[in-house]
């Protein structure tokens, strides 16, 4: 029975992927992409990778989907002149198919059973006081990857802000809609945002022992912030605010500081002080969650519009 479900899910996933690339217009393609991300999340759940499923749905489908929808709205409705090179689409298809085929070949070429460090992680996990091996890998065993990931996220916001007309990136991002928020949006923001913030904080706290963690929690908190902006409950933050910029930097630089302190306390970069691992790990998780939430929200809101004239 579950085999039938998985087979149907695979077919629907393939159909969804084809739907995304064959839909002619940009907006339907983005909406199809969001739906495809949800299906992909379901596939990750079937593979018992709930952490990945949560991240895929919250970031790959949710936040990225909103960013893409805003891009579509910013595009001119008329087709571009001169038209882009006609070879571009076939070329992109060939490159994508080559990458997919190469990845498939590599996966199929793996020896049986596939090499795995899962047993090492399971053996070393008790030392970290964490119950969720994914969090253990992200924050302890492969902490360097996570640190660099946070820097990449920050760089992507720098990329968005680089589109600002103001070279110093001052002012607030342009409002999402020129009209005041419709009453149902305001109602939804007032009622759902407190519950959503609670869910986000729970995901952060649960991440130590259950699926969840900084990225999922940050995405939910960012979504709640955006909901409040869309419902006209809070204003978009001013980009020159020192507090805002500190929140952006708290995660990557806090993590980096812990990393350097590792030399003093544990004798190795990104080592945690022996005996206080869990407390430091939680502090790092909180800092990167705050930064992820603020960064993701600001990426969706777009570049600051320049200093306000009184």
């Amino acid at each position, binding site marked *: 029975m579950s085999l039938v479900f998985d087979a149907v899910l695979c077919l629907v996933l393939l159909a969804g992927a084809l739907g995304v690339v064959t839909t002619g217009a940009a907006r339907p393609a983005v909406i199809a992409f969001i739906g495809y991300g949800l299906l992909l999340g379901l596939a990750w759940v079937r593979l018992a990778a709930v952490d990945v499923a949560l991240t895929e749905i919250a970031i790959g489908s949710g936040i990225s989907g909103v960013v893409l929808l805003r891009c579509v709205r910013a595009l001119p409705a008329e087709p571009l002149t001169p038209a882009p090179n006609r070879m571009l689409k076939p070329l992109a298809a060939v490159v994508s198919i080559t990458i997919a085929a190469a990845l498939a070949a590599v996966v199929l070429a793996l020896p049986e059973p596939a090499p795995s460090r899962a047993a090492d992680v399971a053996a070393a996990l008790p030392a970290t006081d964490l119950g969720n091996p994914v969090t253990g890998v992200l924050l302890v065993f492969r902490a360097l990857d996570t640190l660099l990931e946070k820097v990449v996220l920050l760089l992507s916001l720098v990329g968005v802000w680089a589109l600002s007309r103001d070279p110093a990136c001052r002012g607030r991002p342009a409002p999402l809609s020129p009209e005041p928020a*419709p*009453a*149902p*949006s305001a*109602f*939804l923001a007032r*009622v*759902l945002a407190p*519950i959503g913030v609670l869910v986000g904080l729970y995901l952060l706290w649960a991440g130590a022992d259950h699926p969840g963690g900084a990225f999922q929690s940050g995405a939910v908190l960012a979504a709640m912030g955006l909901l409040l902006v869309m419902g006209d409950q809070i204003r978009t933050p001013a980009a020159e605010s020192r507090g805002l910029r500190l929140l952006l930097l708290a995660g990557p630089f806090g993590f980096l500081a812990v990393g350097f302190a590792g030399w003093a306390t544990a004798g190795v970069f990104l080592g945690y002080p022996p005996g206080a691992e869990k407390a430091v790990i939680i502090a790092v998780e909180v800092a990167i969650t705050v930064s992820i939430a603020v960064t993701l929200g600001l990426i969706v809101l777009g570049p600051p519009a320049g200093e306000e004239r009184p």
Partner: protein
Amino acid sequence: MSLIADAFTLVFVAAGIAFFAAGTLGLVRLPQTLSRIHALTKADNVGLALIVLGLLPQAANVLEGAKMVAVWLLAQLASGAVAQVMAEAVMAETKATKDAAPPEEGHP
């Protein structure tokens, strides 16, 4: 006792699936955006309610059941509010296109 509970679950979940199928059909086949939203939110509301109701006897404890009911309530909140927002956007759009169109003959 468990036989009755299982039968209850089967009947209610099947009914919920029927509502979702009808809602999906409506979403695909109905001609206007407003009626499509109507079909979709009905499926969300009644379909999900029936499925949650059907699954309640299978819950291991009260907390699990409460979580399922909470999921239904949150889905209600989101789908209801989003349907209103979308409907308002549709109304504004149709009004804008009507205003932009040249006035018909016979109108002042």
